[in-house]
């Protein structure tokens, strides 16, 4: 399972962290950042100095290896080749899954879906037994570029390694905070696919806490409630309304009003 730290709603890294905690994973290997990242200094996020990290984790007794990494800035294909070398030669990996969040215009009360893009017909067929939306059509639009997960999936295909990208829609107003509901949806897939026997209690608690908080916000701020109501009824918001919802929701959920 591969998670990129630069992810919409931080779904990938959150799922990786949760699985690592629940499965008591241990660090297995790491890719040195030299040559792949700009090492001209460090970035600071939430008051903490950051440094690029690309680590493999091994889950004892389970058929799962987790790779959590920043997306490199240079030498993309060389980086992906290294990831695949380690996965193939040292971990004997048979399937590769990338995990990512995608922006959804819907409300948080909408049941989460899990979308998949496979790198082969066989892989797509194998995934049929899981609760996945697997009929996506997509083509890169002008001004955009493919995701790094697509690049990885393609590189895996060149080595005949089966792979799939898993995408979970994250309501746009939860992108800056977190979406435990989206994380749970993805984690459930891995739990089922690899018989991990994950304990979801902490995740349930987190979802309940967030739902309660949002309900509180809705009762205290009728304007925001109106916006979410619109989304729940499949009605669009204006740019101003969307921006206000994002801003207020982030302040309330982060600030813990």
């Amino acid at each position, binding site marked *: 399972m591969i998670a990129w730290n630069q992810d919409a709603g931080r779904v990938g890294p959150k799922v990786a962290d949760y699985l690592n905690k629940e499965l008591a994973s241990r660090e297995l290997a790491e890719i040195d950042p030299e040559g792949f990242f700009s090492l001209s200094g460090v970035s600071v996020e939430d008051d903490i100095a950051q440094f690029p990290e690309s680590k493999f984790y091994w889950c004892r007794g389970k058929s799962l290896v987790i790779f959590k990494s920043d997306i490199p*800035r*240079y030498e*993309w*294909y*060389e980086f992906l080749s290294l990831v695949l070398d380690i996965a193939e030669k040292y971990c004997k990996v048979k399937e590769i899954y990338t995990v990512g969040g995608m922006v959804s215009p819907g409300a948080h009360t909408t049941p989460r879906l899990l*979308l*998949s*893009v*496979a*790198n*082969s*017909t066989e892989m*797509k067929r194998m995934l049929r037994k899981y609760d996945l*939306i*697997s*009929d*996506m*059509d*997509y*083509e*890169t639009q002008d001004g955009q*570029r*493919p*995701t790094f997960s*697509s*690049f990885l*999936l*393609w*590189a895996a*295909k060149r080595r005949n390694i089966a792979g799939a*990208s898993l995408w979970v829609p994250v309501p746009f107003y939860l992108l800056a905070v977190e979406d435990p509901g989206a994380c749970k949806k993805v984690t459930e897939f891995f739990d089922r696919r690899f018989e991990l026997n994950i304990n979801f209690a902490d995740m349930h608690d987190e979802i309940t806490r967030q739902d309660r908080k949002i309900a509180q916000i809705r009762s205290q701020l009728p304007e925001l409630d109106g916006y979410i109501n619109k989304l729940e009824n499949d009605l669009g918001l204006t740019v101003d309304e969307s921006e206000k919802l994002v801003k207020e929701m982030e302040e309330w959920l982060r600030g813990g009003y």
Partner: protein
Amino acid sequence: MGFRLYKEPRLDNPVLIACWPGIGNIGIIAVDILRRMVGAEDLGEIESWDFFYPRRVLIRDGELKDLEFPSNKFYFKRTEKMDLLLFIGEEQPTDGTKAYAEGTKAYRMANLVLDVALKFGCRKVYTSGAAVAPIHHTARSRVWVVPNREDLIDEVKSYENTVLMSDIEGRDGQGNITGLNGLLLGVAKKRGLEAICVMGEIPIYIHGFPIPYPKGSKAVLEVLSTVLGIEVQMDEINALVQQSDREIESVYERLPSEIREQLDKLKYVAYARPNEPGPITEEDKKRILQEIDRLFKKEPGRD
């Protein structure tokens, strides 16, 4: 990392004409027209994924069907006079912050292109690009030629409508050729290959804008056609020149008259002398470029 050949034809000391995009896309338009006019066949490609981030993904019915990278393709053609190898790179490999290639990736790509050229017995290379010059857009572009060996000077002097760096006042034979169109000359020199860069002129007040300048391409095409002894139909490039002239003229007409008067001086003076007050001062130049920039930004439908 490497290249992939679709076929391995027997070629007799082919000449390589290689090109990457640059200012006004002058070289690449010329080389691509040449490729189509001679009916060059596909020969192979450099594996782009080592150099570029993909630019397009195609997903159909939940399955990743294709990932598209900028292409870097080789072509070949046997002609009566000589055999040709052509290489056209759709993009210059960069680290994402610069427009032109430099450093390790550029050097690797230049060497790969020459690996293929040498494999087929090539001993001579032409690259192509743009020369930013103080000329007016109504003037015929000349072609600046830069060889990588002294003993090629006489040859390049014999081409019609060309100038050497030393012919250009104030340059004293000095200059730079940015990116792979220049670097290939150096790498060819290192590997013992003769190489010449042919650069079509583009007016100084146009070079900064993301528009092609086919007039410069036409000048390059004429030189390449002579050098290679190949008759190239000019209909297509002439049509492009006419269209481009119309577009540039429509912008030009909307320039304030004082700016236009300054630029009109370029019709009569080929090159400004740097040691004397030129027809256009540095201050004028700055004001003119700002004015044209403003006009291009207002142009509807322009990127």
